[in-house]
């Protein structure tokens, strides 16, 4: 389902066929050989530039090749590289004085007074992914895929499959699919025991298994309107803890940090989501709306609303502003800190991403062709603002003076280029 990128030239049959295959809703996916002059290959190139204010920076180029075969099958392969630098919050609480601690990898980390402690990191991730889609007659198609990715302390290998069929005179499309992934986590400096002072229990890798199923239905409601419902369920088991995150143990009266303990999360997590989407065509413009409800066995619940408006300027050019709102409740074992002397909970994390959180994203995409240059371009800019609960009711002592979850501003830019040949 990743095959269409650009508004393309009216004469591009490849684009049309890929579109059909991807949409699997309207026309005939069992398309035969295109006219001899029509392109059969496509190259997609995108580059992401991502920056969090004084935190993480990411540079991620991705290239994808797609080949369309004469009987309507297509195969694609993708290579991506992420280069990540910067720092992320350790999860520990700020204190009135400068904090110094030694990271798992042996580096000394200093955190200024009153600010949340951060840990620097640097990583490179390489990912490979392939897909093969084949039509089975006019109404049915199957897609098989596989991926492999590796970074300094994480590896993922997985396969997935999908089966899609058009029904009710192609007014309805049903998709069922699933996938499994075998991941390994091998923390730098070894795996620390959960909720410990950082005692390394082993230096090998930890298994993490992920499997998921999806069921989707999309329906044409009118000449200009279609809607869909998608349900997904994901089962994770194994090592789901963040080895580098910390929880502060604080003085029960003053709230001053006394020590810190490692993160510890349950070894299973079942995640579910239901997504409702609508695509509505005005005179030329298109309105995309979606709502997602998500829930999991860690007790996180979230709502996501996504709005996009594509203003079509001409056959090759569009401007598409976007707005996204996201809100989540905290995981049941999330805590801002642990109190010195109190019994330890079974699980605990201070990772802000498992706390109460809100994200607002605004941005816009510009799609165009550049004169006689073949292919089409996309440029997108986005601004994200994330805010947690900076003054939770259970903050004690000096912690009430600090912003425990400072808002984060994130900028991202994506440049995309698609070329059929």
């Amino acid at each position, binding site marked *: 389902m990743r095959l269409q990128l650009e508004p393309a030239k009216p004469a591009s049959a490849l684009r049309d066929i890929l579109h059909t295959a991807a949409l699997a809703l309207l026309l005939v996916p069992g398309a035969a050989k295109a006219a001899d002059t029509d392109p059969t290959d496509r190259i997609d190139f995108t580059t992401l530039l991502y920056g969090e204010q004084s935190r993480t920076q990411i540079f991620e180029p991705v290239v994808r090749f797609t080949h369309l075969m004469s009987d309507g099958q297509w195969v694609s392969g993708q290579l991506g590289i992420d280069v990540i630098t910067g720092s992320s919050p350790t999860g520990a609480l700020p204190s009135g004085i400068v904090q110094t601690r030694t990271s798992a990898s042996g580096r000394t980390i200093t955190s200024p007074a009153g600010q949340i402690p951060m840990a620097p990191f640097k990583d490179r991730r390489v990912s490979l992914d392939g897909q093969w889609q084949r039509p089975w007659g006019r109404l049915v198609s199957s897609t098989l895929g596989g991926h492999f990715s590796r970074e300094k302390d994480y590896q993922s290998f997985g396969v997935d499959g999908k089966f899609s069929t058009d029904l009710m005179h192609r007014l309805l499309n049903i998709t069922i699919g699933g996938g499994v992934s075998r991941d390994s986590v091998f923390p730098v400096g070894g795996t620390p025991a959960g909720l410990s002072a950082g005692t390394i229990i082993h230096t090998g890798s930890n298994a993490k298994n992920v499997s998921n199923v999806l069921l989707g239905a999309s329906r044409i409601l009118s000449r200009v309107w279609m809607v869909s419902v998608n349900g997904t369920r994901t089962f994770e088991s194994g090592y789901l803890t963040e080895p580098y995150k910390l929880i502060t143990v604080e003085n029960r009266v003053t709230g001053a940090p006394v020590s810190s303990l490692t993160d510890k999360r349950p070894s299973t997590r079942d995640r579910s989501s239901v997504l409702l989407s609508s695509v509505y065509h005005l005179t030329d413009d298109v309105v995309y709306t979606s709502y997602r409800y998500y829930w999991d066995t860690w007790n996180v619940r979230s709502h996501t609303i996504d709005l996009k408006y594509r203003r079509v300027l001409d056959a090759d050019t569009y401007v598409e502003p976007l707005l996204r709102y996201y809100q989540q409740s905290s995981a049941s074992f999330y805590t801002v800190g642990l109190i010195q002397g109190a019994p330890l909970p079974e699980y605990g994390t201070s990772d802000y991403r498992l706390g109460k*959180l809100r994200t607002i994203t605004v941005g816009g995409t510009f799609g165009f062709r550049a004169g006689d240059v073949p292919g089409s371009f996309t440029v997108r800019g986005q601004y994200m603002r994330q805010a947690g609960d900076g003054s939770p009711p259970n903050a004690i002592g000096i912690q009430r003076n600090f912003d425990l979850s400072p808002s984060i501003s994130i900028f991202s830019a994506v440049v995309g280029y698609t070329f059929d040949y």
Partner: protein
Amino acid sequence: MIRTARQIGRAMAGLILLLLAGCATVQPWDRDILAEKKMSFNPSPMLQAIDDHIYFSKEASMGGIDAGGGGCGCN
């Protein structure tokens, strides 16, 4: 948990029923607009994949048109 799942399952069943029951019909030759590339739930899959990756690493949720989102140590 299981109860919530059942409720959601039922809600989904209801929605799918609604989708099926809608007597709206669009003749095959009237699908010119629907055949346009922009008339897709995911017209820019590569941009969408980048977004999913960003949100997966910054938030606790996952799931959408494709169930994917994993495959990285970013969360």
